[in-house]
């Protein structure tokens, strides 16, 4: 099935995207309201919250260019030393920018 992007079609496409995205924003909370929160579920949730980020980042580090790798490495190092996110992010962007100039 296709939707023409002429006329109201674009609006319909945008509404479909909005509904699907809203379902993802609400769905997890909705499903959890049926799950009893015991210690095991808490451990699952805590482990998953860091894992979401790691799972986003892993392909970025492996498939990215050297700029991306230097950026992530610099961010990690500065964050470990200073424990402040903004300098760490700044260092990462700077590293990517420098790596891509050469």
């Amino acid at each position: 099935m296709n939707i023409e992007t002429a006329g109201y079609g674009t609006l319909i496409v945008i509404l479909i995207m909005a509904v699907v995205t809203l379902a993802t924003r609400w769905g997890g909370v909705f499903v959890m309201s049926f799950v009893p929160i015991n210690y095991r579920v808490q451990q699952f949730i805590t482990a998953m919250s860091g894992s979401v980020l790691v799972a986003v980042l892993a392909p970025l580090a492996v498939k990215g260019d050297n700029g991306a790798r230097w950026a992530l490495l610099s961010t990690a190092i500065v964050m470990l030393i200073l424990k402040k996110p903004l300098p760490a992010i700044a260092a990462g962007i700077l590293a990517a920018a420098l790596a891509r100039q050469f």
Partner: protein
Amino acid sequence: MSNVEPHLHELKLKHIYDGFKQLIPISLFVVVFGVAFGLAAAQTGLSDTSAVLMSTLVFAGASQFAALDLWGQQVPVVPLMITVFAINARHLLMGATLYPWLRELPAAKRYGVMLVVSDANWAMAMQAFNRGKPGLGILFGGGIALWVAWILGTWLGLHFGSAIENPVSFGLDMVMGCFLLAMVVGGKKNLRMFIIWTVAACSSLLAYWYLPANSHVVVGALAGGILGGLWMEKKQ
């Protein structure tokens, strides 16, 4: 997080305002992403109204860029829905991780707060909770800051986007990646967490290479979560 403290779910106007302010620095970068999206949308042939409307109603950058890839005279509905769902499926996991605190709120507030959940405000909210501080104000106030920045950026990109020649060469595409990594590194670290993260990273990569597109985040996150549920910390 072994016991949810009573005040952590507080969501007063002050918390929302504080959260808004805390997310302003990263929102400035989100404006730049928005500019990139606005520019790409204009180049794909979306009208100004459509692009701004999409950013306002969808508010999920990666899936919006992916939708542009599917754009043409016609848009295939089922592939669009699958793509948007797969890219945004991490919201399901974020909602689940927030549930221990969200459940203290009445349903209308609970789902209202979730309207603006995205990577940055979720990560900062979770960090606040893990430090024993209230996080829902960061989630909601910060989410509003990010949302406004995303819409504003889209609008700027439509009108002035061509002024930025090559944002990638300045490393601007790495802002969100570096931010998320800073959140990971700033979190609780021990051998157990490190092994869980390694399993999550490897599962994500395997899914990235061998499973359908966009499944890697959910696969990696679930692998890490399940390991955490099986191999539990000793209760204090």
